[in-house]
């Protein structure tokens, strides 16, 4: 029997597989049993009511998809009254993803979530759609340090910080989040992208630009997971383009302690369960007793020179 359990800071997960924010909600319980997941992760919520972006909000592009959902939110009150009780029937930890337009706003919303049933806070400081032209806190170490510092003071819950790949130096952002008190990093959100319908000359998204997710994103966010895992001593949770157990193994070898799965769930709603079962089979085949042995186990270690790698 393979031991699939992992630890993310003080939190123990039965296995390293959980949904990516925005691709998971109550409706998936019609298809899979949430008790089998390592954790549950909510769509990002905000304190205030928000409408989200114009339609069309999604488009297919090659081995990926674009989305410009934005963060439609019925507000934190609605979440506490309706969603939280639903998730409390399951035994795995609930990760609540939050966002706000200002650093103080982030602090305010996590204070409202100081409730039993909220196991972990995931600060989405990376959503590229909500701020003008895709700007987000996580694009710069300085703004990351400010918002994470305020969050750290505002909550005693484990604090995960989700980074954006739309940053020129993600390792510096990762270090800023660690120094400001993050307990773990999620690497990463979607890459700002766009596509145009050449028949109609119209952008395929109502918002023109949106976030790229799915298999095409994987080599990029995998590289960033590797860079972040090298740069910090807190756990890194890999996210981007994972659809098979082998994809998840790759992330763990690059330094991830756990993984999140998003777009693959849209293609196959059972994807997360298949990845969990596939990870157990993979470890069995390789004679690996505990899955956490995979974290950072890339041959040669995590210390290949980036300068040489780019030549």
């Amino acid at each position, binding site marked *: 029997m393979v031991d699939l359990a992992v630890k993310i800071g003080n939190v123990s997960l039965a296995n390293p597989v959980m949904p990516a924010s925005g691709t*998971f909600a109550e409706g998936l319980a019609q*298809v899979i049993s949430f008790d089998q997941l390592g954790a549950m992760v909510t769509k990002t919520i905000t304190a205030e009511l928000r*409408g989200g972006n114009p*339609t*069309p*909000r*999604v*488009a297919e592009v090659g081995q990926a998809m674009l989305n410009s*959902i934005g963060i439609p939110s019925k507000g934190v009150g609605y979440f506490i009254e309706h969603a939280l009780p639903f998730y409390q029937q399951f035994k795995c930890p609930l990760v609540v993803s939050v966002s706000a337009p200002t650093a103080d706003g982030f602090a305010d919303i996590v204070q409202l979530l100081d409730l039993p049933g909220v196991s972990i806070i995931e600060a989405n400081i990376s959503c590229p759609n909500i701020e003008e032209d895709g700007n987000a806190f996580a694009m710069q170490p300085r703004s990351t340090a400010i918002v994470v510092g305020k969050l750290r003071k505002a909550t005693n819950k484990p604090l995960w910080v989700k980074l954006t790949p739309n940053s020129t130096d993600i390792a510096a952002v990762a270090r800023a989040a660690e120094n400001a008190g993050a307990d773990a990093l999620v690497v990463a959100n979607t890459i700002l992208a766009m596509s145009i319908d050449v028949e109609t000359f119209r952008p395929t998204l109502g918002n023109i630009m949106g976030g790229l997710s799915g298999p095409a994103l994987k080599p990029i966010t995998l590289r960033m997971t590797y860079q972040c895992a090298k740069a910090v001593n807190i756990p890194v949770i890999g996210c981007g383009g994972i659809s098979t157990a082998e994809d998840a193994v790759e992330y763990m070898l690059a330094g991830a302690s756990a993984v999140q799965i998003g777009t693959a769930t849209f293609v196959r709603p059972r994807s997360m369960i298949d990845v969990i079962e596939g990870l157990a089979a993979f470890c069995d085949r390789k004679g690996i007793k505990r899955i956490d042995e995979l974290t950072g186990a890339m041959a040669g270690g995590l210390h290949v020179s980036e300068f040489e790698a780019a030549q």
Partner: protein
Amino acid sequence: MLLMQRLGRELGIAGEVAMEQQMACGLGMCFCCVRSFQTADGIESRRVCIEGPVFKLDEALSW
């Protein structure tokens, strides 16, 4: 749809409309399949996949 709405209003006949929208998840999770509806409290977004696909004709907006 606008014509049906006008006729419904003039003749006092209630109606329903089945609506389409791009869908990614089909399970109410991703909020990509929204359409706008006029309600007493203002304009509301509803998901075609889970709150629809059939809606009250007099509330549906064409954008």
